Structures are given as C-alpha cells and as structure tokens.
C-alpha cells in the first residue's frame, strides 16, 4: 500500500506544480491570495509544534483546527501536508535570515510552492484518517482521493439526479468515534510536550475546530455555487456518514461539554461533539485522558486493548463514506369520511389475507404519495373506528406524512389531490379540508385527543316493544357513568381492566314501521366501547342500553357521526 501511494505521489508532482504555476500566470488572483493567507496563518503559530505534528502524520487542516484557526483557509485547494512543510521551511529560513533557497524565492518571501509539493496528500492523516483530505473508501471498497471541489461536484450530481426543487440545503457530517479518540491523544501529546510553553498557556481542546465543522467549511461554499442556493437550516439534508472499521474498543464515557449538543445546525457526530480537558464521565467513568496516555506513548502498560488505540498508529485505514440525501417529511392534514362497512382504517393483513376490501390509509396515501413523488407514506389519525363502522358527518382528522417528497405541491395541486380522492369510482372514502401542514400538525391532532367527545348513531333492536316512556327515560340521562370491563373481543390483546367512561347524552329516534328497532344517537367520552354499551357484553359493561330499558338489546349497525375536534 505504501509503495502504491508513493508511486502516485511521484507521478503527480510535476503536473500539479505545473497547474499551480499555470493558474497564477493565468491571472488567477485567488490562488495567490490563498498562498498569502496560508503564510499569514503559519506565521501566527508555533512552527516547532507544527513540524512535530507533521512528523507524526497529522495533516495540515487538522493542525490548523487544533489551534482553533477559523476562516477560509480550510477550503484552500492546495492545503496539503507537503505544502505546509514547504511554507514552514521557507519561514524558518526567513526567520534565521539564511539564504538557502534560490535567489528567486528569497526576493519574494511569499512564493510559489516548490516543485516537490503536491496538492493531494500521499499519506492519510493519522488524526482525521483522511476525512479532511477528501480521501475515503467508496461503496465499491475503492479508496478515492479528491479535492474539496471534486467532492462537492460528486455530491451535487447525486442531488441533481433526484431533486429538482432545491432552494436550500443542510449539510450534515457524521464521523467515527476513533477520530475524537485520536484528537484527544494528539492533544495530550502536545500538552505533555509543550504544555509549559507560552504558546500553550490557557489553550483548551474544546477551542479546537471539530473535524465536522472543518469539513463543512470546505464543502459548503463550493456546494452553494454548484447548487445555486444557500446552505443552512433546511428541509433538504445532505448527510455524509464516515465510518471506520476499527470500532472503539474501550468504554465510551459520555463527556458533556459546556456547548452540549447544540451543533445540529452544522453537523452531527457519531458520538460526543467536543471533549473538554476535564472529562465528565457518565457511565463507566473511564478517565479518557489517563487511558490514552498509557496506551499511546511507550506502551509500557498494555491493557490488552486493541492496537487501534496506539497513536500514531502504524497503519492508517481510510474511512468508509456514505452520501445520503433526503428531505424532511412533509405533512398533509384533513378529515376523512368512510362510507363503507368493508374498509378498514389502516392496512390489515393477516396470514397474507387482507381483511376488508381496502383501507383508508391506502386509498388516501396511495394518491398523495405519487403526486409528491415521495418514497413512502405514513398515515396517522385521531382515533379509529372498526372496519364495519362508517365514519360520517364532519369526518375524522388525519395526517399523512410523505418521506422524501421530490415535488412539493402547490395549494392548487393539493386541491387537485383532494378532488382526485373524492372522485374515485367506488366512493368508499371522502376527504375534506386537505392541506399541507407543518410538523405542528402532530400537536394539533394529539392535543386533547383523549378528552374529545365522539358522537354516534347506533341501530338498536330490543326484545320488547319500544314505549314512549323509553324515549324520555333515555333522554334524561346526562353525563352518565358506565363501567366497562375490557370487551371480550379485545381481551386477548388488551389488559383486563375496568374503565369508567361517560355517556354525555342519548336520544332515541323512532324508525317508521318498527317498534323493536330504533336509532340511538349518543355522545360519549373518547375511548368508550359503543357496541358493548348496547348489548352489555355479557353484563361486563354496566349500565348498558339493555339494562336501562330492562330487556335484551342488540346492535346491528354503528356509525360515527361526529369527532369533536378543532383541527383541520
């Protein structure tokens, strides 16, 4: 492996050096500015520390970020280790006032990189494992080396393929925990060696720029240019997930920094975001600092832990990178009516057989999904009714969540969706007030769901003729309490409990031509089992319609006539 990379290095340099000089000659001022900026940064930092870090394999960007350097320096395309070496070499010579290099360079202190400098690092950084060198393992297990710009191009191409409406994006990066481990190791090494020096006084690891933030600094601007929109908080998320084969074998102690977990805007990390010098252990308070020192240097005490925790490691493997682009789910709210007694609310399949002929979920979701060009949908409703119970009146509030919608429908388009559902041939389901809602739709639905009242119409038969007094007596009960033991029909899957429910009011409506049948209108507390209230469930619901009328009562049909909720 080492041999291969060296060969690449050798073949690249003349080409790269040629490119850099060519662009400068071609009046590309930005490169010149970048070189100047690099010199400025380098001047402000202790060169002996930087050289030491370079010697243990830490890349240029990691060095800068450990010192808490901010700004555009990270996105300089030629910020390689050899470039930094070269600049350091020049500066030392300038400082020591020696004329070692050719007269040309001596005349102009801010000079072009020497010919043995390459833009792309040959060797993987021992700290960030190549992440900040845009080097990673792709899904074909090939190690890919890019520049920041190339990486941005790859990402934008992925996005463009599927997403046509992008007006913003959020860039998120996830890195493997071992990088943080490495950071901690390097920091301790630095502290140990240079802690007493002036340049190190008062410095904290927490002041460093995280790998995540640095990578985002490199990629955000080129992506903004390529996609012609701003990056920041957005519904469209670009996720770069780096993973490493060497899992962290030691105990994870959860260190909480004063910044907590507020970094979600710019990045997410696999584990802890920042580690303070004072490690606050959580689970098993393994002293992260202590353990690292033992293992990294000298290795006199081998704790039997894996080789991966030695720093610097003998062999550095690149990380595996997965790009993922997705959009936050979008929501549609409305109310549905169900006219059929053979349609369930949600998909209901037992032993490969469907119960009923369709479901509200599939009818509604099945139309909204393709019109948004989404990946899949989730259906949520405020309560539910049995398959053989119709949902009439104002309808039941529901929410449809669409994942990864490629197309956000306009208000007019949403109306079209509603019309399409309502004009289906079989007229099993109707939708009202359909509109796009934000994620607050959830709260609207869940709010007080348990307190809401429901209104029903039940077709009841009694074993004796109906009397006029019955209408009066039934109507007289207001806010009547009933005790319901868990109905036998659901007892196999619900806890055996006795639940007290309230029947707010009842009204009997006579049916012409029958004195044993009548329509019972009633309004009850959410969660009341209506069927059991009518037939009594072998006496386990008490009182029941039968017990109130002193005879046997059976229910033939049930319809929900109103779900009293304010939403949609």
């Amino acid at each position, binding site marked *: 492996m080492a041999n291969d990379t060296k060969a690449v290095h050798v073949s690249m340099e003349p080409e790269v050096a040629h490119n850099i000089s060519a662009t400068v000659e071609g009046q590309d001022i930005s490169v010149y500015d970048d070189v100047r900026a690099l010199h400025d940064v380098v001047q402000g930092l202790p060169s002996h520390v930087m050289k030491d870090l370079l010697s243990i394999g830490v890349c240029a960007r990691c060095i800068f970020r450990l010192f808490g350097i901010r700004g555009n320096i990270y996105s300089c395309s030629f910020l390689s280790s050899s470039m930094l070496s070269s600049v350091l070499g020049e500066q030392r010579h300038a400082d020591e006032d020696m004329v070692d290099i050719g007269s040309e360079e001596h005349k102009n202190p801010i000079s072009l990189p020497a010919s043995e400098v390459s833009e792309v690092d040959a060797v993987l950084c021992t700290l960030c494992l190549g992440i900040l060198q845009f080097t990673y393992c792709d899904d074909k297990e090939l190690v890919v080396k890019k520049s920041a710009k190339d990486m941005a191009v790859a990402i934008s191409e992925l996005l463009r393929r599927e997403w046509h409406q992008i007006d913003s994006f959020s860039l998120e990066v996830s890195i493997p925990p071992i990088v943080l481990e490495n950071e901690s190791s390097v920091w301790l090494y630095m502290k140990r060696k240079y802690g007493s020096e002036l340049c190190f006084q008062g410095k904290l690891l927490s002041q460093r720029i995280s790998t995540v933030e640095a990578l985002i600094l490199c990629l955000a601007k080129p992506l903004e240019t390529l996609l012609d929109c701003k990056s920041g908080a957005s519904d469209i998320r670009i996720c770069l997930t780096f993973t490493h084969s060497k899992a962290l074998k030691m105990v994870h102690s959860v260190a909480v920094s004063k910044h907590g977990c507020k970094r979600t805007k710019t990045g997410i990390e696999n584990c802890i975001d920042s580690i303070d010098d004072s490690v606050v252990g959580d689970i098993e308070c393994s002293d992260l600092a202590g353990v690292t020192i033992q293992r990294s240097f000298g290795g006199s005490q081998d704790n039997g832990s894996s080789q991966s925790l030695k720093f610097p490691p003998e062999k550095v493997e690149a990380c595996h990178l997965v790009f993922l682009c997705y959009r936050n789910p979008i929501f549609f709210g409305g109310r549905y009516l169900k*006219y*059929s*007694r*053979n349609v369930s609310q949600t998909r209901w399949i037992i032993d490969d057989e469907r*119960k*009923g002929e369709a479901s509200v979920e599939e009818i509604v979701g099945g139309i909204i999904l393709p019109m948004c060009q989404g990946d899949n949908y989730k259906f949520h409703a405020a309560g539910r009714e*049995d*398959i*053989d119970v*119709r949902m*009439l*009146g104002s309808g039941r509030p529901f929410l449809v969540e669409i994942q990864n919608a490629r197309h956000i429908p306009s208000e007019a388009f949403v109306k079209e969706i509603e019309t399409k559902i*309502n004009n289906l041939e079989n*007229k099993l389901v*109707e939708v009202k007030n359909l509109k796009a809602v934000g994620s607050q739709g959830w709260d609207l639905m869940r709010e007080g769901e348990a307190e809401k009242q429901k209104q029903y*119409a039940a*077709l009841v*038969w009694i074993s004796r003729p109906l009397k006029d007094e019955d209408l009066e007596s039934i109507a007289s009960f207001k806010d009547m309490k009933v005790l319901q*033991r868990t109905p*036998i*029909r*659901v*007892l*196999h*899957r*619900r*806890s*055996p409990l006795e639940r007290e429910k309230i029947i707010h009011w009842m009204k009997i*409506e006579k*049916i*012409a*031509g*029958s004195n044993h*049948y009548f*329509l019972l209108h009633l309004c009850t507390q959410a969660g009341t089992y209506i*069927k059991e209230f009518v*037939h*009594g*469930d*072998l*006496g386990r619901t008490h009182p029941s319609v039968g017990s109130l009328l002193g005879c*046997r009562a*059976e*229910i*033939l*049909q*049930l*319809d929900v*006539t109103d779900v009293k909720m304010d939403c949609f």
Partner: protein
Amino acid sequence: MKDYSVDDTDKLDSSVQNNPAPQQQQQHEGDGLHRLLVPDARDLPLIPPSAVESNFVSYFAPDFIKPGHDQYVYRHANGLCVIGLAPTHVAFKDSGGITAVDFNVGRSDRSVLKVTGKRKKNAQQFEPNTALCKVCTNDDSYIVRCCVKGSLLEVNDRLIKLPGLLNSSADREGYVAIIMPKPADWLKAKGLLLGLEEYKKLRDC
C-alpha cells in the same frame, strides 16, 4: 352485529350507494347524513342474531365428568372461551333453581385472582377438569369445571351477589368464566365437544 365482520349483506346499506353529492350548507349536510343513517324498516330482520350468536361459535360438553353436568363453551374468533351452564344442566331441574354460587373451590378462591397486563401475567393455568365454582340449589350442589385447558382470565363474580342470573340468563349474563387456551390445547378440547346441532339432537331440544 358481528365484530370486525366482512359485510356480505348489503341490504341495510343500500342507501350508501347513492352517496349524496357534497353540500355546502350545514342543514343540507345534516339531511344528507340523516338519510344515510335511517334504515328502511322493511330491510330489517324480525329478530336479529344476538351478539353471542354473531361473534362466538357455540360448543357443548354434555355430561362433563358427571352425568347431567351439561356445560357450554362459546369460542370467540380471537380464541377466548366463555364457559357456562348449558340450559339442560341438571342444576336447573331442582326446584327453586340455583340459589348460591361459590368460587372458593379447589385450592383457591377463583374470584380473587388478579390477572394483569396484555400478556395476562399471574393467570392460573387450569386443566379441563379443574373446578371453577360450585353452584348450589335447595337440594344439592354441583361443580362447574373448565372444559378447556387454558389460563383463567376472569370469573363472573356478579354471580356471588346475583346467583339468579344463572336462572334467568345462563347463556349470557350468567356466564361463569373466561378461559384463554393455547391453540394446540383448544384443538384437543374441541375434539371432545359437540356443536350446537349435535347437542340439540342429543338432548332433544
């Protein structure tokens, strides 16, 4: 009315096919709704099937352990079994009918069991011949047994205060207990039970 039934009789719902066009006014909506709700009396059966008839399959255990001890097992589609006294049980022949019910039989008082949770923890496992309760008449007392091997979920403790329920409606409010058998145990038990028609024939009723 069937639980979760697949409705093959459309008669009662003929009004559904003529779905009224969406109306703007509340009043019109109310009318439209009302039209959907009210059935045509001519479509209604004289006596509808009872909840038990619609949702359970009835089985019978004649002469269970002892002659004359006829019991029923109503099995729900979800597997639960309701156990009770069949109308031909010898206890009903005693004058005065059933006067008392005692759940304190066997090793424990069945009426104080506490089954909790979806998984029905603490439910006692009963064998088919395990005693559920003792019913007493003026003349004698009779043991009512499980008939099916399974977990005892519930006993009808209302029978303690109202033993008369057995006399008036042993097939409904006078049920004795609810058992949850495992599928394999149910199949075994089923083989020893009679269906409704067979039972009627046997007992000439």
